[in-house]
């Protein structure tokens, strides 16, 4: 498993940006947890808290011209890729001005202008979609890359496995970011993945595979950076096996009895990517505590405002029911 060598080519601005994004995801998710419990968010909700270093470590290497494909656990991917918090929160609250006009919801947040191809509630479905975005990039010589995110459970889905092969055969600029958070719903990845680790599948599809500590932003960032450079250079796809863990249940409402005693507590204690990040950058004197604390405060305010706005905003109008099913008619 690859550990992150600290800092590398990252500027202080980058570090601040990374921390802000990770903190934004964390606070967003914790607030969504509360709002869901309070009955103010409808539908199915899957929280990304705990996995922030994965989405941010990958996406900090990308621009708006690059694409990512998300999963049902998609808030983190969306935020890391630059989707705006306000419209995202409005979307979760099913409001007219939500990022998808209230017609998508938590599992279907998309923003193509930011290269976010959508959270997706069909496990594995975003993987071939992102392969297609990479194909478009190659055909149109855009120099951009595509990163499909996929869980450990999704790693057993046929369309995902096919996509690994296809991206290799077509030599596309894709980085497959598998997030192994230990579970697919209640099912342990050690049980459902018949080989030892997802990384062991890379060779079967003719590409390099790299396993990384997904709690360490620097580890993820470095591995992703190398894979993305390789992809941009036209050298084909890479598989990342990012070992991570979720702080909440599979979805909101999950009693999580399948998890080990203290498992979540230990995760939150020892494996909090935010604490790990803070410690690393402060120990290395790259950032100061007060800079980090200031971000924490700003993020709290941002999320608070977004919820307030959501509570005030109108539902979609009745005519939205019939709009946008086809381009015309």
């Amino acid at each position, binding site marked *: 498993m690859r550990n992150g060598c600290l800092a590398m080519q990252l500027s202080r601005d980058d570090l601040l940006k990374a921390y802000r994004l990770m903190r934004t995801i964390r606070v967003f998710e914790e607030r969504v947890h509360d709002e869901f419990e309070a009955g103010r968010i409808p539908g199915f909700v899957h929280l990304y808290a705990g996995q922030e270093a994965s989405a941010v470590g990958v996406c900090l290497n990308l621009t708006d011209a690059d694409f990512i494909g998300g999963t049902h656990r998609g808030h983190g991917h969306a935020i890391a890729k630059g989707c705006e918090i306000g419209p995202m929160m409005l979307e979760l609250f099913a409001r007219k001005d939500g990022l998808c006009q209230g*017609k*998508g919801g938590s599992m279907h947040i998309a923003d193509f202008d930011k290269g976010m191809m959508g959270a997706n509630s069909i496990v594995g479905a975003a993987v071939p979609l992102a392969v297609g975005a990479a194909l478009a990039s190659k055909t149109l010589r855009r120099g951009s890359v595509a990163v499909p995110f996929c869980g450990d459970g999704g790693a057993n889905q046929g369309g995902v496995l096919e996509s690994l092969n296809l991206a290799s055969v077509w030599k596309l600029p894709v980085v497959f970011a598998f997030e192994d958070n230990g579970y697919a719903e209640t099912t342990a990845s050690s049980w459902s993945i018949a080989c030892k680790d997802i990384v062991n599948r890379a060779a079967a599809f003719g590409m390099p595979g790299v396993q990384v500590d997904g709690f360490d932003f620097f580890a993820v960032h470095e591995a992703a950076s190398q894979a993305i450079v390789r992809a941009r250079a036209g050298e084909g796809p890479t598989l990342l096996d990012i070992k991570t863990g979720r702080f909440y249940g599979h979805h909101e409402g999950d009693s999580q009895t399948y998890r080990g005693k203290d498992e979540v507590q230990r995760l939150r204690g020892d494996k909090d990517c935010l604490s790990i990040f803070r410690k690393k950058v402060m120990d290395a004197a790259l950032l100061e505590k007060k800079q980090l604390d200031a971000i924490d405060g700003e993020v709290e305010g941002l999320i608070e405002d977004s919820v307030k706005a959501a509570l005030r905003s109108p539902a979609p109008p009745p005519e939205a029911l019939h709009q946008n099913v086809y381009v015309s008619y």
Partner: protein
Amino acid sequence: MARILTMRKALSEAFRQVMEEDPTVIMMGEDIAGGMGAPGEQDAWGGDLGITKGLIGRFGPERVLDTPISETAYLGAAVGAATAGLRPIAELMFVDFMGVCFDPLLNQAAKFRYMFGGKTKTPLVVRTQIGAGFRAGAQHSQCLYPLFAHIPGLKCVIPSTAYDAKGLMIASVRDDDPVIFFEHKVLYDSVSDEVPERPYSIPLGEANIVAEGDDVTVVALGRMVHFARTAARQLAEERISCEIIDPRTISPLDEDTILESVANTGRLVVVDEAYPRCGFAADIASIVAEKAFRDLKAPIRKVTPPHTPVPFAPELEDAWLPSPEKIAAAVRESVKA
């Protein structure tokens, strides 16, 4: 004394009873027990809505099999196992996921018996959740049973009551053909009625006359049966009497009961939660327009969602669904026409 169960409980009881009566019945699906390989509790979920909870404890992991997220592989395996001596009940968590695993049903299970000249049978039940109402969005709220009913060789069952759910499930498991069993997610806990404790079966292909009436025949399935009953109560106050027919299985279809009712009422309203185009409402309407045309006194009315995906926002999802009000309006139009 009446034994009132929810549809959830009735189904759980059916599973227990069919597995007790026949050792070749097995179950499979994602997290139908839960906790495989995990450090904590086994049987942690019993399916994502808890419907299959307790079965692994009773029947063991050789008969209650959790699966990886590999619907093609395990549904295909269920089909293969059915030709090799088992009677699998395979769960497809949501019918919306058929997109990743239709082939084992479309081209394999459905066609074996015919294509192989009667050489094999495929006693398989695939059970799956359908329906809107949970604000689950476009990819977790569909009905899609018309896609299965279109395929010769598949039987399609859609229960509306706890009593029917149990009896139809037992019949489906005992049946020698592949049966797709559609469970409306809203009905698991919202519906309860009298359910005998003993195992009993309801023949596939027999409609239920939910309410007798003289003015209009209303055909409805699943959750829509309940909406139709609500509408009928309202209409009764307006002295319009509805005969409500729940086909319960759409393939095979009990045409006779529908045609006889229309012969009496002369009017037909079909209510369905599936998309309208090439859907179940169209199917019933076309059968009546062909076979009972001379009985009809008014245009056939269909009450369905608009031809759009299911929207997420509660206000839109509710507007998308048929409602007792829309049904009542259609019945009134039919009577006036």
